[in-house]
């Protein structure tokens, strides 16, 4: 075990006018448990990165010393948002990522993965998808990902701030158990739950200056109060009329029933909170109320669109303007400039009116999104987790804005797991955790690393991804032999015969083939119209038919075969078998796996905009703005992910191992034969028809 130390460390990112850390000295003896506190922006995250040896001197100036880890993964780093850390398609591969980077052998990787998943109390089977897991499970999995490299120090950046109370304490217990015999540094806003478990409390002021350092109890007593609930003295006025309501509403998410017979009435001048563990349907309830999800039963009563304002969990998802003031007035339903200035004043954002909304701090962004919603003067204000991740001062500012909206007689609905906000509410609607979810948790989960599971196995799945690629490529080359429509039809024959081997379901197959057939028809038409033959003559149509057959022969085998290629197995083949550059392959696989996550973000972003009245799904301006917002979100995520990956030894993983082999079996011989056949057959067919 090693001690951690920072000596006279000044860190000045090139993008900032001031250093984020100024001459910081911090010595942490091996095995000590340290709680790192301080307001947002005091540099806690930067200190953790410095301790992890992950300050990148291409992005800033480093003075002083911040000795890095002695080996890759010696210091594990956990981020606030565990989703950012995920790189793999299965739980097993996620935990295996670090050991792969350390180029361990397969048996050793499996042993490390089993031990790490056990130690972090991950209660999911190894073949489950991490991105589908709940926040608490993801954070435990991230912990397992670090433990698999047997770190001597664990560095945690607000590891429980995005979790509900019960889940947070369970994750905290996992962390403390895993930290036995290791050095532990936790950065947190909420100190109380950690105090009795740590040896030392370090409180940071501006630019990482240490303003208090000592035994936890004594040190915390010297501070101006732990974030206890700000006394929310709220005189309940007479409740207003019902603004929106759910009547016996049931709704599904992804085909799974999550809400059943929910009754809810939202009155003007009342703050209602929806609570419940993750997966209990909070989001589905909000979506149903907002009209984004149709209820399967019951009815929803809501004001007209201009009277509804929505603030998404990540405020950046709703931002459209290039200045703070323009953002407040961006919705066509918000036109009162005086009100905008008043709201800016109330949110303490007047001085930042000209700044780009995306450059604001987390707390400022949250306030901006709320006043932009209030500028619509809505009768119904809906917020998704409006206080998550805020420190005491910023938390209070958000509550004050909501308090103002309540006094103005607006109906407010917030999905939240924040005890303080819940205490502030007039009404709490608690959703029970679904019974289904517990069934997915295994008491003794399977830890064996295996391939990504498929919904239904088909013959094509037996082939190595490289062979599946070869089939598509050789068939495409073969298609250039097609010179006549008769030759084209003959060339199509084996493809039609083999297609059933590569179609997983009728619907999926049609979805894959329909675009091909449509574009083939389009090409036939274009050729008949714009070819050298007289437009739309019989001769031109035959030429068109030949082109349609040729393009189908060109495309269809590849599209069908690719249906059995999954990014993880492709990565194993390219990296493990073909020895393609390991870092590029591994990063690409991680990117492809996150594409599904990006698709979900895209939905959230476009919905947030439509709810602000900023255009329909097909307006080019809306698409451009949403693309920009998606890129901002994805690029911020990519930077967090890079940190998480480097803390698991990826920076130096020029040679790495792959947890699963990419075997070439007997079936692959047959696959190669099919590929060669598809390449040669069109030429033969052409000879046959002369």
């Amino acid at each position, binding site marked *: 075990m090693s001690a951690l130390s920072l000596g006279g460390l000044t860190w000045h990112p090139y993008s900032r006018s001031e250093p984020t850390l100024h001459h910081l000295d911090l010595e942490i003896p091996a095995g000590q448990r340290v709680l790192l506190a301080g307001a947002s922006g005091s540099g806690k995250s930067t200190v953790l990165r410095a301790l992890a040896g992950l300050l990148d001197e291409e992005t800033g100036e480093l003075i002083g010393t911040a000795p890095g880890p002695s080996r890759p993964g010696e210091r594990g780093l956990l981020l606030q948002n565990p989703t950012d850390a995920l790189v793999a398609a299965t739980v097993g591969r996620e935990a295996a990522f670090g050991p792969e980077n350390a180029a361990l052998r397969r048996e050793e990787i499996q042993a490390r993965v089993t031990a790490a998943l056990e130690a972090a109390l991950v209660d999911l089977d190894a073949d489950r998808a991490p991105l589908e897991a709940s926040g608490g499970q993801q954070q435990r999995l991230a912990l397992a990902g670090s433990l698999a490299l047997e770190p001597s120090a664990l560095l945690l950046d607000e590891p429980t701030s995005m979790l509900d109370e019960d889940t947070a304490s369970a994750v905290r217990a996992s962390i403390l158990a895993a930290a036995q015999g290791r050095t532990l540094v936790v950065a947190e806003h909420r100190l109380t739950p950690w105090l009795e478990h740590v040896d030392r409390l370090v409180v940071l002021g501006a630019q990482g200056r240490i303003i208090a350092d000592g035994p936890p109890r004594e040190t915390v007593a010297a501070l101006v109060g732990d974030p206890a609930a700000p006394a929310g003295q709220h005189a309940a006025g007479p409740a207003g009329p019902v603004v929106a309501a759910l009547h016996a509403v049931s709704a599904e998410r992804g085909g799974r029933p999550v809400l059943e017979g929910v009754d809810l009435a939202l009155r003007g001048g009342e703050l209602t909170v929806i609570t419940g563990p993750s997966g209990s349907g909070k989001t589905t309830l909000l979506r149903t109320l907002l009209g984004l999800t149709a209820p399967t039963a019951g009815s929803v009563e809501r004001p007209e669109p201009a009277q509804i304002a929505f603030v998404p969990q990540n405020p950046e998802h709703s931002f459209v303007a290039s200045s703070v003031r323009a953002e407040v007035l961006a919705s066509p339903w918000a036109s009162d400039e005086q009100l905008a200035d008043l709201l800016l004043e109330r949110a303490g954002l007047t001085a930042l009116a000209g700044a780009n909304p995306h450059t604001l701090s987390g707390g400022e962004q949250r306030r901006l999104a709320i006043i932009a919603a209030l500028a619509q003067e809505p009768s119904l204000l809906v917020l998704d987790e409006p206080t998550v991740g805020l420190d005491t001062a910023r938390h209070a500012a958000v509550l004050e804005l909501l308090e103002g909206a309540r006094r103005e007689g607006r109906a407010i609905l917030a999905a939240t797991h924040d005890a303080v906000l819940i205490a502030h509410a007039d009404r709490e609607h608690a959703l029970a955790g679904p019974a289904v979810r517990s069934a997915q948790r295994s008491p003794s989960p399977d830890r064996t690393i295996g391939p990504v599971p498929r919904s239904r196995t088909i013959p094509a799945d037996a082939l190595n991804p490289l062979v599946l690629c070869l089939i598509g490529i050789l068939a495409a080359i073969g298609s250039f032999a097609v010179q006549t429509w008769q030759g084209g039809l003959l060339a199509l024959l084996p493809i039609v015969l083999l297609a059933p081997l590569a179609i997983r379901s009728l619907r999926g197959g049609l979805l894959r083939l329909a675009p091909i057939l449509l574009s083939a028809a389009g090409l036939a038409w274009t050729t008949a119209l714009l070819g050298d033959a007289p437009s739309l003559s019989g001769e031109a149509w035959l030429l068109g038919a030949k082109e349609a057959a040729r393009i189908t022969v060109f495309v269809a085998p590849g599209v069908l075969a690719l249906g059995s290629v999954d990014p993880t197995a492709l990565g194993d083949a390219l990296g493990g078998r073909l020895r393609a550059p390991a870092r590029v392959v591994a990063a690409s696989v991680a990117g492809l796996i996150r594409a599904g996550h990006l698709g979900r973000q895209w939905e959230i972003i476009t919905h947030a905009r439509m709810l602000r009245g900023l255009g329909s799904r097909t307006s080019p301006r809306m698409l451009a703005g949403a693309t*920009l917002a998606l890129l901002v979100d994805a690029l911020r995520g990519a930077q967090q992910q890079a940190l998480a990956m480097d803390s698991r030894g990826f920076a130096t993983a020029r040679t790495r191992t792959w947890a699963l082999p990419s075997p070439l079996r007997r079936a692959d011989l047959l696959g190669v034969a099919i590929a060669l056949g598809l390449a040669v057959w069109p030429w033969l067919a052409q000879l046959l028809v002369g």
Partner: protein
Amino acid sequence: MTRFRTVDLLVTVTIGAAFGVAFLGYGQLYTLIGPLTTAFKPAEGLLAGVWFLPALLAALIVRKPGAALLAEMIAAVLSMLLGSQWGWGTAISGLMQGGGVELAFLLFRYRRFTLPVAILGGLFSAVLEWGWEKFAYYQEMSWAFSFAMLGFFLLSGALLCGVLGWAATRALAATGALDAMPVGRERAQQARATATGSAAHSAPTAKDDARA
């Protein structure tokens, strides 16, 4: 500076993946305007530039050899896996489009990342992609129409890829999301220079709270 940091790799891959997702939507746009383009197919070239954007954005943001090609290939492979109607042709398109942008920046030895070079990248991609499509998809289209199509490709490459991509990079840099990248650093330094210039006489105020 040609070494890819992890963050360079991930930013490149992420740009590719984000566009791979967004392309599903743009692909539908092709179907939507189908009735218009079936009358005069070459006009479809007007949309072409959008497909080159991941390459250009990656080159302008990451500024390292190979970034453009990798981002475009990721976008291509992702759309192939999701079932693009062009199958393996998509991979060749990715090669052509990424290669075109890459070539423009290579000509300037990866030292100039200005609007003219961005437009040149769009033009190169347009020529290469047109050549591939002529060979693979429009063999039977008469040369007159084919050259009309090339014209539309070039126009689109210059505007929808070159100009739009350059503007999008600036918009992204202005959000602070690129602060770890050279382009973000440049933007921040410029912003600071103008801020200290204009605010030289006003007293320095407390910096806002949490930009960490």
